[in-house]
């Protein structure tokens, strides 16, 4: 099991490999904002405070969008593009940063 803490929403979600963070957010009732949901709009940018190595590698769409908003912080990800890739561990995410 992987633990995903959405600290801004007081949510600790126990989930498994392959789950997308969008699904975790939606099913847990988190307030994380999503726009286009396909990695174009930048609405769902969030900061991975812990466990970024447990997520799918950053993809080209994310690189394009993060460059466009002018950030070089490599802990920022688009939540609609990430999924859990590890069997165990702890991930901590904040979307107010």
């Amino acid at each position, binding site marked *: 099991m992987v633990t995903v803490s959405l600290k801004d929403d007081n949510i*600790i*979600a126990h989930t498994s490999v392959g789950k997308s963070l969008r699904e*975790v957010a939606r099913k847990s009732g988190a307030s994380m*904002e999503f726009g286009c949901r396909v990695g174009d709009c930048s609405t769902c940018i969030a900061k991975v405070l812990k466990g970024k190595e447990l997520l799918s590698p950053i993809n080209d769409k994310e690189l394009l969008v993060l460059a466009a*908003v002018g950030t070089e912080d490599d802990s920022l990800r688009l939540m609609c593009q990430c999924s859990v890739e590890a069997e165990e561990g702890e991930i901590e995410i904040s979307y107010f940063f």
Partner: protein
Amino acid sequence: MSALAAQVSDSVHFIGAFDPKIRTFDIIMKTANGSSYNSYIVRGSEGVAIMDTVKKEFSAEFFVRLESLCNYEEIKYIVLHHLEPDHSGALEELMKRSPQAKLIISGRAVMMLKGIIKADIPFETANTGKQISLGDKTIEFLSTPFLHWPDTMSSYLHEEKILFSGDVFGSHYYDERLFDDEVGDFSYAFKYYYEHIMRPFKQYVLQALNLYNRFEIKTIAPLHGPILRTNPQYYLDKYEEWSSEEKFRKNTFGKKMLSVFYMSSYDNTHKMAEVIMEGADTIEGIVASMYDLASLDEKNMIDLLEESDAIIVGSPTINGDAVKPAWDLLSCMAFLESQGKIGAAFGSYGWTGEAPEMLHDRMRWLKFRLPIKPIKIKLIPTEEELDECFAFGKEVAEITMGKMVEMEI
């Protein structure tokens, strides 16, 4: 229409367009005084910058004013502070006429640009601190997102201390005299615009004010309505005051506010509401209140929703639906920011009992935090069921105060 391009300062002119007949803007706003789509030209020793365009159907008016002041070959930059169609409507045509001009937009506007102009056009992005030069004139950009679109930015003309604020400080108020000291009384329009456009984004307003405060501002040039040159600080202060009111009220109470809104047909949902509120009120740091939706008008609803950290909505189920006042309450969230607020739903029912789940689902789309499932009770609640309501209110209050909720997904 007066074809004159009004002078704002030594190097800045208004070249926007007037829309005196518009009566409803963006579906949600009444515009009893009409409006204007403000655009400006800045002339420097080494070229010209065009600050925003106008709504497409007003392009002719915009180009007449622009041509009275410059040739298309002189345009070095086109700046779009915000890509909504009422400001980007003449962009494509302007870029055809001035192919050498560099388009400057915010990073967040990149994907919107592709959605608005269905062609690849060259652009540069700007973030806080980026500057462009027109020779003896320097324009600095400020990232002011979500005011009121994600892409919004502002800019500052250093030499003449002019803030190009985008939609911030706008008013839907048509008056060709243009300047705040010459037009009629637009105070109603200024506040109405804030209430309907900026109010959901108060935290971003306060962030933008922090950026604006770095500069000495002599004139505010917004994208709608009068240009503010008499006492710009007055308008900055008004935005600060309106955006801080909620914070001020919370500080006064020093506690988190939990509001239970309900409608009841046979007193059953009312009984649930009372006990839910009692449960919530047992938690240290919470002030719980309850409101009968039958007696709340829209203004009260908006104010109460805004100051509540947690909102619990109760409705009976009538013909498979929640009652209209419950939907009316949630529709007021269009004027507010819901991110971060906790929501929950409940209700008594006779036959099918869909209302609590429907309200819960609606709150999910409104981006409430919904950590616990709705509670519904068939007809008259028993003592055991009222105990569940008490625990439900207590749980929502605990989560509001920071308790973590664990779940498996």
